[in-house]
């Protein structure tokens, strides 16, 4: 019997759900109609991220590592699908390995970035890294899967919630990744993925007062404008390296809190 194939509608990923753009708009990318997010979708995504962040940031480091490892498992089970949407199998495998690499850092960060500080007085003095909050990410265009994973994982490992704008020209891998994230144990809203026009969405994220850090990607023409907008609430601005892999990438989204505690008798 012949059957009608079920065609996929490419949507946004906000608060753990897959809505269309509130504007109803789409644009064409990679031969598909993809949702074209509006400023209100940005608003909704940031709201979802803000709501989800405390529970994710408050989860134990061990638990965050486990959940991110589970994300690697979910991508691993879809290697052929991902391979068609990015630079091939090699890129998918590197992306999976990168997720696992970062997942392992979750419970090692405090030792590397924080510590017990020597002070000239009868006090214990500790430095503890804490997530900065909601992080906005403009995903790179090159290597649509690996690039996105590279920029997504550092803020996530540290306990931040993320609103990412997928590559404008190659968004399908990001949507596929959203489906893997939805089936991992990441709580809804910790990762939100928007597709659409970067020139339209980036300034809204840059000016949003409830975004704490903004990865605007490698320096380009728009950097000065975005940095000016980000200055209004003193966002951390990161010029993310699309292929960086280092604990310092995680540190870019952490606040170091220092605690003084009197030494008892």
């Amino acid at each position, binding site marked *: 019997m012949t059957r009608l194939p079920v065609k996929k509608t490419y949507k946004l990923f906000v608060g753990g759900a897959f809505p269309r753009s509130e504007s109803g708009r789409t644009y064409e990318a990679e031969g598909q109609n993809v949702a074209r997010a509006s400023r209100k979708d*940005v*608003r909704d995504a*940031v709201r979802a991220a803000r709501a989800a962040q405390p529970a994710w940031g408050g989860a134990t480091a061990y638990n965050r590592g486990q959940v991110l490892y589970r994300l690697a498992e979910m991508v691993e089970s879809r290697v052929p699908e991902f391979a068609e949407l990015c630079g091939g199998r090699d890129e998918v495998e590197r992306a999976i390995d990168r997720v696992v690499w970062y997942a392992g850092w979750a419970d090692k960060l405090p030792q590397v970035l924080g510590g017990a500080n020597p002070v000239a007085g009868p006090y214990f003095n500790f430095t503890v890294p804490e997530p900065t909050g909601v992080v906005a990410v403009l995903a790179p265009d090159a290597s649509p899967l690996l690039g996105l994973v590279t920029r997504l994982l550092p803020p996530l490992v540290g306990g931040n919630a993320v609103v990412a704008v997928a590559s404008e020209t190659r968004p399908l891998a990001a949507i596929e990744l959203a489906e893997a994230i939805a089936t991992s144990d990441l709580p809804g809203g910790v990762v939100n993925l928007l597709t659409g026009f970067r020139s339209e969405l980036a300034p*809204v994220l840059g*000016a*949003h*007062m*409830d975004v704490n850090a903004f990865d605007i990607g490698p320096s380009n023409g728009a950097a000065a404008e975005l940095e000016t*907008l980000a200055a*209004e*609430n003193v966002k951390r601005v990161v010029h993310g390296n699309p292929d960086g892999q280092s604990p310092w990438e995680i540190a870019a989204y952490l606040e170091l809190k220092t605690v003084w505690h009197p030494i008892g008798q």
Partner: protein
Amino acid sequence: MAQAPVLPPGFELPLEPRLPRIGSIDAVALEERAASLAKRSIKRDAKVFALELAIRTIDLTTLEGADTPGKVAAMCSKAVRPDPTDPSIPSCAAICVYPNLVPTARERLQGTGVRVAAVASGFPSGQYPTPIKVADVRSAVELGADEIDMVIDRGAFLSGRYAKVYDEVVRVKESCGESAHLKVILETGELGTYDNVRRATLLAIAGGADFVKTSTGKIPSAATLPVALCMLEAVRDVYAETGRRVGFKAAGGIRQAKQAVQHLVLVHETLGPEWLTPELYRLGASSLVNDILMQLRKEKTGAYQSPDYFTLD
């Protein structure tokens, strides 16, 4: 059964035989109309107008066991100047507190034009003997309350003792004296049906209510749009029949600017722009103010706002 006093001409309620006959509100149509009015798109100038109006009609409320004079004092400052960084934002209509905190609020709000409302008459349950309720109201008025928010006795209402409910409203109204305005809280979430909501609204109005108010804010089901519409229609019908203008206060569960605008649309469409003033319309809320302030600042700056930059209470 107590004897009902003389009623305003042309308005027979609450004659016991008439009340039970009020009924058969079309719940589906009511909810549909409320939902369709809520879908109105209010943008730009109209939105700013609605948001500023919402602030002007807010009864900034704190009704917790843990309320202290310090908290009420801070809330009074907020009611006078909701956004300390923006003097163009108007003051709220009133603050609403328990009677014990009325003197604190009175002192803080002297000369500001912001009124002091007190909940009284055995708030929030209303399950107290009538003399105690009356004494409660009288003492709140003596402490300096400009407005009294009383609760009806839902137990009596639901068991059909309408006269008791009515008499209490009348006696509380007498205790309010000349100066204090009376708002009657129906606690619609406990009334069960829209028919009962309409019945209770008419009963309260006949008893002398200056305002009818949806809820105490103490139970989860509060000022929903259909309930508000139901009460507004009763207010409209009383106006049509007697020419008497009764105010309406929506309270409980209104936390977002969008909901406030939806309520204002409902009033505008049911009673007209005449009712869009603090003298005839109030919104009872606490966290709503911050959301409105965030929306107003967003309209001014173009950037979405964060609660980090607004006061906590």
